[in-house]
């Protein structure tokens, strides 16, 4: 019987293309290969891609889990972490053309005849030992300045929301690639077999919003078990997880057992690995039925915790509630928790709208970092806070002191990271005095991805998956680990 199965597997696995590609392996192709891949035979590159084993890190990880607090819509760096007093001094004056350089503008401001510089409506203060500048909109994040690493020199290639967001989430602008969370799930496997390795939480502020779509947490060409599972607020946090009325746990168990028998017959006949994957997913869903309600229950959280995250953390669907939930999921071994908070697209009315957005996220973001720290989990959990690009230093539309807008700016913006082997209490990179161009230590999106994978014990060059005839990476063919921010 076993023999028969092996033959079947073999038949399924071998096809003409694979046969030909095996055949071509020889001294010649090795020599050619070494010309094409210069470090093929040098010390560092001696392990070939083939010995990446899904589920096992390449080297001992610093971070076991990631919580990505995505600020969807692109919060302004100039009202948050990149302090530019010069912009206030030059309020209303035109952005010098030499600073703008060859930057392509969006259709929303390309027709403006003037680019009046505008300084932050909000003041900045220095916090902690690191003396990092943080705007008055984020007093709680200011208080954890010594636990976080602010990167003021990140940049991207896309200037519009969807491609930029997709780039940050999947490493490519066009979509249909696996999300970063899916790559991590594929690379490290799940820690807790009773929960999905990659979960997604959504919340929405009152500011001008931009959509998020399920393609952002798609598994792309990876196995479907690596897809992000969206937890929603309300009675059914995970859709289709509850038993239908009239079916109890025992009935469900019996049904699954019978189904497994049928699937087994099918597997024996066709040997398709997707069949056994399906059986595993049914089993996991069954275990999730008891694990998820426990996670979603916030009634046992102490008053201290509620005060720390802010009372909104008990209102399902808010950013604060999602932060609390993110901690609980992460604490229970979910590898990648992806939050999105919508409403950061302040083309107009920025001072007022951004204050509302900041109020939504400031306290809970800081609380999450502190909460992980006091549980001894910050060392092994990487927290990331940031949007898909930055905003222009000049006003979009009419400029008033207390009312202005900012357009999209991909060339230079700020994010912060905490825990997971990232150096705490530092500010990395610098922008020019206009906050427009990077002058020191630029960090590209690919570098950002490479660094995250590195912290998880994954070499971004080795974490590959072959699809449609070529190998893919999260970092495409680029990316350098940003060593300067590592402990």
């Amino acid at each position: 019987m076993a023999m028969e199965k092996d033959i079947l597997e073999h038949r399924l696995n071998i096809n003409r293309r694979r046969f030909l590609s095996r055949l071509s392996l020889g001294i010649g192709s090795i020599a050619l290969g070494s010309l094409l891949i210069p470090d093929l035979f040098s010390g560092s590159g001696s392990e070939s891609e083939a010995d990446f084993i899904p589920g096992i890190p390449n080297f001992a990880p610093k971070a076991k889990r990631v919580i990505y607090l995505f600020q969807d819509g692109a919060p302004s760096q100039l009202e948050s972490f990149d302090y530019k007093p010069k912009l206030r001094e030059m309020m209303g004056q035109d952005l010098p053309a030499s600073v703008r350089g060859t930057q392509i503008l969006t259709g929303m401001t390309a027709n403006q005849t003037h680019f009046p510089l505008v300084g932050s409506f909000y003041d900045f203060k220095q916090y902690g030992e690191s003396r990092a500048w943080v705007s008055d909109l984020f007093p709680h994040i200011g208080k954890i300045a010594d636990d976080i690493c602010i990167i003021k020199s990140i940049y991207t290639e896309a200037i519009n929301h969807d491609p930029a967001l997709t780039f940050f989430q999947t490493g490519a602008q066009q979509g249909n690639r696996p999300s970063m969370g899916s790559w991590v799930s594929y690379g490290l496997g799940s820690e807790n077999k009773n929960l999905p390795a990659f979960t997604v939480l959504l919340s929405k502020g009152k500011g001008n919003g931009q959509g998020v779509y399920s393609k952002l947490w798609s598994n792309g060409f990876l196995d479907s078990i690596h897809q992000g599972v969206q937890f929603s607020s309300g009675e059914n946090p995970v859709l289709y997880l509850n038993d239908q009325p009239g079916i109890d746990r025992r009935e469900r168990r019996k049904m699954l057992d019978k189904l497994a028998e049928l699937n087994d017959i099918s597997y024996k006949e066709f040997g398709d690995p997707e069949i056994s994957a399906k059986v595993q997913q049914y089993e996991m869903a069954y275990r999730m039925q008891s694990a998820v309600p426990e996670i979603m229950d916030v009634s046992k959280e102490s008053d201290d915790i509620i005060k720390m995250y802010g009372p909104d953390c008990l209102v399902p669907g808010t950013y604060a509630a999602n932060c609390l939930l993110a901690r609980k999921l992460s604490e229970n071994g979910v590898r990648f928790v992806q939050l999105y908070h919508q409403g950061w697209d302040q083309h107009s009315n920025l001072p007022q709208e951004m204050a509302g957005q900041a109020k939504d996220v400031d306290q809970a973001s800081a609380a999450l970092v502190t909460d992980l720290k006091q549980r001894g989990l910050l060392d092994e959990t990487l927290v990331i806070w940031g949007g898909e690009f930055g905003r222009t230093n000049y006003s979009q539309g009419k400029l008033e002191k207390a009312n202005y807008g900012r357009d999209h700016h991909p060339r230079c913006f700020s994010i912060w990271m905490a825990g997971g082997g990232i150096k705490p209490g530092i500010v990395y990179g610098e922008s020019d005095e206009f906050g427009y161009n990077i002058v020191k230590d630029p960090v590209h999106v690919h570098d950002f991805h490479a660094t995250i994978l590195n912290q998880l014990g994954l070499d971004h060059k080795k974490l590959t998956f072959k699809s449609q005839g070529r190998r893919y990476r999260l970092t495409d063919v680029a990316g350098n680990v940003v060593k300067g921010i590592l402990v």
Partner: protein
Amino acid sequence: MIKSKHKSFAENLLFALNIFIIFFLLFGSDIVIPQWLQPVGRLHPLILHFPIVVLIMAMMLEFFRFKERFSTEKLYHDFTTYLWLTGAIFAAFTAIMGLFLSKEPGYEGSTLQWHKWLGAGVVFVSTIIYWCRSAGWYNVKVARSGAAVVVLSLVLAGHFGADLTHGDNFVLAPVWHPEKKLIPVDRALVYRDVIQPIFESKCISCHNLDKTKGGLMLIDEKSILKGGKDGKLIVPGQPQISLLLQRVHLVAEDKKHMPPAGKPQLTPDELNLLYLWVKDNADFKKKVIDLPVHDSLRLIASTYLKPAEETEEKYDFAAADDKLIKKLNNNYRVIFPLAKESPALGVNIYNKSTYQPKTLEELSAVKKQVVSLDVSKMPVKDAELKTIAQFENLHVLNLNFTDITGSGLKELARLKYLKLISLAGTPLNATAVKQISAIKSLTKITLWDTGLTDAEVQDLQKHNKNIEFIKSFKDDGKPIKLNDPQLKNTTLVFAKSIPVQLSHPIKGVELRYTTDGTNPDSIKSAIYKPGLELAQNTSVKVKAYKSGWLSSDVVQFNVFKSTYTPDSISFIAPPNTKYSADGAKSLIDKDLGGTNFGNGKWIAAQKNIEIYMQFARPVDLHTITINCLRNIGSQIFLPIGIEIWGGADLNHMKLLSNVIPPDAKKDDPAMAMGIDCKLNTAKPITCLKIIAKNIQKLPSWDPVKKGPEWAFMDEIFLN
């Protein structure tokens, strides 16, 4: 064939050259090479390839010269002879050029001596054999050993020469890195582990004991401080005037640019490091970690070093059997390898209900391999700490929210590699924590939400400087504002009465409300209790209170009575297709649209809206309320007039009400509001027609100045 005249000339030349070489070797130290001859010397590395090839060929022919097949071949003999002669002359010329070159500054040391004497040796031996090879005693053995000696000397001379030109280990350097291991930051010295390696990889091939170009050696502190023939290399603290920095920053085309063109250049990071090191007084003893945390020198240097915390912890125990790991792994006890090819294992345990002491005991089979264990929230008792203490290589232990008390903790003192332990949410005491603080390897203890007081933790911290004790988030003591009360009702429209369902996410909150339009206060206003029913159109204001918290904002909501529901409803004049909600029935679905006009619950048009309703049985109507939206900024105006027509059937309708809402003003706030229409009839009604008239003439202050304006409605209440 070469004429014998030429041959004897060549032989004489060879003899002369040999004499010259001997002369040079004996009196070389007194010879000064004139400048015009230097280029000749510098051709040495070019010319040397000829004698190597020619002589090796000659030696091969000589090696087989006595073979029967060749011994009688005249051509073979002549060719060997001429080849030999040519090779020897080339070798002599090469040697002389080499001797010239060796007089240039920068060439000295034992490698040069070996190269010089071996090179000269090749010339002498090949010349001597050339003259002896016709003698009677010159047999196979002599010929072969002579040829072998020449070839061997050639190879060795070539090797030492290459070392001189390209530096040691030039050939194998790309593939063979002798003991090049990264030093951890915490043990690294700035000079020894960061700066010296730069000199070694980019400078030392020309500035060493053997080859001291420019009179400079970069081999140790003494030689570096001494400098070269142009003076001191380094002015500590002043990189701007230090020769070292000047030379490396010259443009690449400059003759004095270092490293010279064609040699591996310094990277921007390396340039930076040299600059920062000199700026930092070119200290030879300073440790990297003695520099300030954010110091650029430290930051860049750390990228050349291994992180201080041992990421690549060396585990010298053997790996556990894969089958055993597989057997122990289950849905609630996850065992995973730390990394590829690492014997170390991590274990996470989940699900309270399936946890038993056995869950840990079974892990004894891999007790050597477990380096991290997470049992947080499991009902782990003190007794089980004994089991955990067996995991001798444990580095990270998470006991958060387990059932342990302080008393069992001393068992863990045996864990001599334990680095991080998390004990949050367990009822500990200071004595117990003291027992484990004695573990030398510990770096962090998490004590949030334990029984320890702040003073106790501070005391522990004072006595254990190497351990970071994490107590807790410090509340600044300021009261926090409560969030808003929540209304759980799915609809606010009712026929007879409505139960008000209020709640608040925080336990112990008091909700106080008013129904008279005033703001609630914490003393007089009624306290909300479930069961509150309202039977009239009411505006409710509610506010949350709790001691120790600031009260919430006021939340206001209105409930609407709608006694009758028509049996059919349709549009006479249809609304705009973009704002037609779910058709006319949306107006009687008891679902209000709020203030967001784009949410698909509002009906709107830029002209009059006309609605027709019919009742199966006549109803006694008195008031009709139409809920409309006003948002001047978005060009949404209240209707300028509402006409209500009714009667027993379609053909007998009378005007029952004609309401003119107040004129719109520029600063009218955006809000939804009901417009009441009182009917002046006592007769029951079966048919009803409502006409909401849209504003025709734009007000002069209209911000957009471009009509037509919009009229919006979301619900009609019939009483």
